[in-house]
């Protein structure tokens, strides 16, 4: 086994027939299918995989699962690079490349480690106490701090992979497919309920997979392995059961909605994923479950002692997993340090795999149930002892052991002589913490269980229950029984099955009771004279001394402790460190752990890729796109589009070599001189029917609608209930009890909801139906002196004469042969019509009109020209209807009916809306008739000079603001609309449009906002 010196000759769940090549920090290694990057590195004898956050200490592999605090690597390169990836969760694939992080120049020789020399001046929160003088230097200090922090590197180009989403529904969702989860799934599945089982690992079986008994193979048949295989086969045969591998239940939200992240292709080599380009890299599920079973197992916790971060110090269960599951010896000579029985199983398995067990250091005075078994195998069991320090640099070389004093409290007290034991592996077990994260996220309470010295699930709030190790039950048989009961109960409550399922059977792997005798040991005190760092949170380099300092300085709440020291705020969210931190805090405060409490568990359970959260709805697909029926025509004519809500609208149609502004001015000028067409399909259209329709319109508009005749249109203004302008548009009376309302593009949705609200909530007695017909009709506005002539060619059936079809008239009839609606309304102030035809015909009619207009030199125009035309005519839009203006501000004061109530009427009377200081709509022209009035300029009464970037030395009074501005090609002068204090009284005054951000101030003359055809002769002609 050259090249993999720590690989055991046989066994494990790896496929030795499939060797894989990978690189770490540029060096090539070999592993096998079924390895993780961590197991493969261990097999190759690589021990230092990264550097720590603050002190840049060498760090190795601590766990074999998603709780890993240390072994974070930069996986892959280029667009697919991924920082902070846990080596323990990366399934090895051929060609994998990874790099260590947070080191310079290399992981073995890291210059930043020099900071470790100053670590005594860098306790937690040191930065709050310094870097304050001189004040301007902070930005420089900060730059250094930022560069030292951060861990991995972000990609700098867009992600080439795809991600997908999936909504799911089930009767029973089971998180975790260990013995408890599988038993639950079988019990629930057999009732016929719809079941989803998700496990973050690549194989169902949970921690059973890490036991020697599940390794199977012809030489070692095992009941446990068979049970897993049979269970999985049965589940996969059930049509209503979905078994998801590599799928983490990451969040438990309101009303039993859970978030799941399925890693579909992360374990594949690039060539494998290339073979199926349609497969997403990851799939994010949002599952609504009627009932939930949490069978998420338990996480082993370490014990704190000096030097406990040295590579080679590992959790006992992890060491066990490496030998059993991966066929890797994590070291040659181990010391096992424990306060419970489970580590003995590790010791026995290690020994069986050929790792020398130098000693089992058991802090329990009497040892435990397996102590004698271990002794019988010749292991040196030091009961009543503790490891006080690990020695070594980049690799642990030995431990120092001392006796625990009889009278030692939970903090322990070490005494007597020291004994040094050489080793290259320290396997630690400080007990087990049930994985209560999801239970707690679901609002369930947690309770501190003294028997196992851990938080366990308490009362549930949502429809969920925990089973197995997640509930503090550690014997496999009991886990299965509990799982089956939980699965059966969940199915029953979801409406399936009414008899409890039969109890599971099968051979049990050897069990160990957890309860440590006496109080649990959380951290071993410093041996007299010792000074090694005792890490609680390894990723954030938080030591037991840091915790003590925080307490000394008054940060007594667990939440203060967390934030002051950053304990538990790293990418592992304190999975292996939080409870220890709490316990030390409790000791220092002389309180119970239960009284100190835990910090809040928050989603996600393990970090979730942002791309997966987003799915396919990003970039261009961030929001859906809405297109009119004429869109392909605009596209073919080279229109540039602009987003209007979700719609795409043509902004202008530049001719070859024509600059944007030239095109816009050409279009605007052409319409007034000849004729042009604009696509206005995006305006909201609401069909209003019923005997009370007129009454309803009367209540929602400020002006009256009862007298509107059939076949006529009217302009209307709506207020919000606070008396400010909401929207404007036209209403056409189609027949006796039927009206068509148009809204602005932006407010189509809100106006519809507003109408529905008032009909359903405020005035349910009104007999009115409102139906949105925006999408049914394509809408084309044709404007310009020749518009009538063009229409006469295509709508011959309609008498277009001014007398028969006056301004604000409406006719029904065929346009280009298509039954449609023609409205004589004008936004531009020109002779104009708006044509509505059913949308499938929209493009056809548009083309027919363009063709008919050929003789009149018709052009299409876009929103920019439209905006110029309406500004010339003084029509208000979003810049003026900005939610802060009253009807009177905009010149609609006289439209407000005195004779009736309407939405917003009462509010419009309030003093602030009628006092003499309101800003009113006016028109502006530059006094020199040449200089463009800057966008967003503020109106000031006196000329002002340059205003520096840092702002005026003394504030300058403002009496108004420019709301719309453009160059008017028809008047050949810049113009603007503005809101100016008492503006209507100021016509003729010279004021100043000041734009410090543009660096200019333009003298302007105040005037009426209607620049063109104030008498309306053109549009009535």
């Amino acid at each position, binding site marked *: 086994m050259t090249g993999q010196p720590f690989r055991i000759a046989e066994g494990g769940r790896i496929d030795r027939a499939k060797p894989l090549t990978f690189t770490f920090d540029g060096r090539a290694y070999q592993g096998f299918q079924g390895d993780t990057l961590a197991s493969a590195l261990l097999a190759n004898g690589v021990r230092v995989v990264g550097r720590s956050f603050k002190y840049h200490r060498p760090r190795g592999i601590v766990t074999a699962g998603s709780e890993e605090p240390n072994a974070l690597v930069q996986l892959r390169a280029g667009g697919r690079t991924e920082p902070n990836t846990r080596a323990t969760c990366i399934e090895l694939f051929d060609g994998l490349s990874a790099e260590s992080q947070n080191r310079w120049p290399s992981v073995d020789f890291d210059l930043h480690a020099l900071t470790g020399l100053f670590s005594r001046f860098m306790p937690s929160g040191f930065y709050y106490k310094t870097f304050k003088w001189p004040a301007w230097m902070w930005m420089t200090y900060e730059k250094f701090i930022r560069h030292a922090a951060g861990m991995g590197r972000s990609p700098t180009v867009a992600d080439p992979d795809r991600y*997908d*989403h*999936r*909504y*799911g*529904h089930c009767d029973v969702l089971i998180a975790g497919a260990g013995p408890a989860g599988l038993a639950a799934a079988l019990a629930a599945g057999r009732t016929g309920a*719809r079941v989803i089982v998700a496990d973050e690992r690549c194989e169902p079986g949970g921690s059973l997979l890490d036991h020697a008994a599940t390794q199977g193979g012809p030489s070692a048949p095992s009941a446990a392995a068979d049970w897993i295989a049979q269970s999985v086969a049965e589940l996969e045969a059930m049509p209503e059961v979905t078994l998801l591998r590599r799928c983490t239940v990451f969040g438990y939200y309101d009303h039993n909605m859970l978030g799941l992240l399925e890693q579909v292709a992360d374990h594949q080599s690039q060539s494998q994923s290339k073979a*199926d*380009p*349609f*497969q*997403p890299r990851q799939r994010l599920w*949002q599952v*609504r479950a009627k009932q939930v079973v949490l069978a998420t197992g338990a996480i082993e916790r370490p014990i704190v002692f000096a030097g406990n971060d040295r590579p080679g110090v590992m959790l006992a269960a992890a060491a066990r997993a490496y030998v059993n599951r991966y066929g890797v010896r994590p070291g040659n000579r181990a010391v096992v340090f424990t306060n419970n029985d489970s580590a003995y199983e590790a010791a026995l398995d290690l020994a069986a795999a050929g790792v020398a067990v130098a000693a089992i250091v058991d802090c329990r005075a009497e040892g435990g149930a397996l102590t004698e078994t271990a002794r019988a195998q010749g292991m040196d069991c030091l009961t009543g002892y503790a490891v006080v320090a690990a020695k070594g640099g980049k690799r642990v070389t030995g431990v120092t052991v001392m006796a625990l004093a009889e009278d030692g409290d939970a903090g322990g007290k070490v005494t007597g002589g020291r004994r040094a034991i050489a080793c290259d592996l320290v396997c630690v077990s400080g007990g087990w913490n049930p994985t209560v994260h999801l239970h707690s996220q679901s609002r369930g309470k947690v309770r501190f269980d003294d028997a196992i010295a851990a938080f366990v699930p308490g009362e549930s709030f949502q429809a969920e229950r925990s089973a197995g190790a997640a509930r503090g039950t550690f014997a496999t048989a009991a886990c299965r029984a509990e799982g089956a009961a939980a699965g059966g109960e969940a199915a029953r409550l979801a409406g399936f099955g009414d008899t409890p399922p039969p109890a599971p059977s099968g051979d049990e792997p050897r069990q160990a009771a957890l309860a440590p005798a006496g109080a649990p040991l959380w951290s071993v005190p410093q041996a007299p004279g010792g000074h090694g760092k005792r890490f609680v949170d390894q990723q954030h380099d938080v030591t037991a001394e840091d915790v003590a300092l925080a307490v000394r300085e008054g940060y007594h709440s667990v939440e203060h402790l967390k934030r002051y020291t950053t304990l538990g705020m790293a990418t592992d969210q304190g999975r292996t460190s939080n409870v220890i931190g709490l316990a030390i805090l409790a000791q220092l405060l002389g309180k119970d752990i239960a009284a100190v409490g835990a910090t809040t568990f928050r989603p996600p359970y393990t970090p979730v890729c942002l791309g997966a959260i987003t799915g*396919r*709805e990003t970039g261009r*697909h961030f*929001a*859906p*796109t*809405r*297109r*009119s*029926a004429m869109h*392909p025509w605009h596209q073919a004519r080279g229109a540039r589009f602009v987003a209007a809500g*979700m*719609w795409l609208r043509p902004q202008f149609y530049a001719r070859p070599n024509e600059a944007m502004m030239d095109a816009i001015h050409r279009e605007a000028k052409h319409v007034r001189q000849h004729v042009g067409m604009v696509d206005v*399909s995006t305006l909201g259209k609401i*069909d209003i*029917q*019923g*005997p009370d329709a007129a009454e309803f319109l009367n209540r929602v508009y400020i002006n009256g609608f009862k007298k509107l005749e059939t076949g006529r249109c009217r302009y209307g203004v709506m207020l919000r209930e606070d008396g400010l302008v909401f929207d404007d548009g036209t209403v056409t009376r189609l027949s006796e009890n039927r009206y068509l309302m148009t809204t602005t593009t932006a407010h189509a949705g809100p106006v519809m909801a507003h109408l529905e609200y008032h009909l359903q909530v405020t005035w349910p007695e009104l*007999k009115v*139906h409102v*139906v949105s*017909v*925006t*999408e*049914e*009709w394509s809408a084309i506005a044709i404007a310009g002196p020749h518009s009538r002539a063009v229409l006469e060619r295509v709508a011959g059936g309609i008498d277009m004469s001014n007398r028969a079809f006056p301004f604000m008239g409406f006719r029904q009839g*065929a346009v280009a*042969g*298509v*039954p449609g609606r023609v409205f004589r309304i004008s936004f531009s102030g020109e002779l104009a019509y708006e044509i509505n035809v*059913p*949308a*499938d*015909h*929209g*493009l*056809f009619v548009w083309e027919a009109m363009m063709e008919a207009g050929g003789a009149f030199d018709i052009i299409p125009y876009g929103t920019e020209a439209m905006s110029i035309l309406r500004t010339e005519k003084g029509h208000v839009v979003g810049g003026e209807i900005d939610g802060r203006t009253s009807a009177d501000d905009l010149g609609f004061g006289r439209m407000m009916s005195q004779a009736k109530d309407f939405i917003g009427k009462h509010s419009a009377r309030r003093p602030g809306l009628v006092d003499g200081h309101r800003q009113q709509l006016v028109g502006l022209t530059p006094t020199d008739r040449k200089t463009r009035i800057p966008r967003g300029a503020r109106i000031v009464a006196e000329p002002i000079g340059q205003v520096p970037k840092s702002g005026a030395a003394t504030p300058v009074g403002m009496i108004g603001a420019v709301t719309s501005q453009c160059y008017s090609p028809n008047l050949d002068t810049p113009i603007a609309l503005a809101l100016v204090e008492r503006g209507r009284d100021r016509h003729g005054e010279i004021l100043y449009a000041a734009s410090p951000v543009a660096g200019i101030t333009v003298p302007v003359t105040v005037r009426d906002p209607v620049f063109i055809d104030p008498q309306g002769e053109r549009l009535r002609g």
Partner: protein
Amino acid sequence: MVEVLPRRSALEGALEAGTFGAGGTPGLTLSERRRLAIVHVAGDAGDPAFTDAVRGRTGLDLPIEANTTAAGNGRTILWLAPNRWLVVCDGEESAALETGLRDALGSTFAAVNDVSQGRTVIRVAGARAPDLLAKGCPLDLHARAFPTGACGQSSLAKINVLVHSVDRGADGGTDAPILDVYVARGFALSLWEFLTDGAGEFGYTISPMP
């Protein structure tokens, strides 16, 4: 006259017949249902004059129960709201259907609107059809929850849609479900892009235009 006028679906140009996506047996088929007459009817389900009039013109009882449909003689009525329905007919002229309904209703308090051209109807058929929609729609589309004849309005890829469970295939299972998705015309292309992109992993066929 209308018949001879060129009509253009929102998916014209985008809908290209063929087989796409992952290899193997395609998991579903996408197609567009064209030239349906779709009329929106609003009225009081408790008013016999209203229900009778609708029955008189369509031959169908209005589905009063939420999320259900009534179907027969080439027509389907889909429930939208306690006072709203869509009447959908294949091979009938929408204007005639609209006028017919309006005439039948006379002075009854009701509202009738031809919305045929404001809706695009995309048919998603095949074993993976529910899986495809589940990529962006929070409705439970399992045959148990959404059997043949069910309908429901919801959101798909952030676009409002009406999904009609036309047929759940043999014995109500997931054999070959047929689901019709009604979407506002303006969003049709965007939805089409979402569906075809999402269908890639299942492999899919686009049937030619009818």
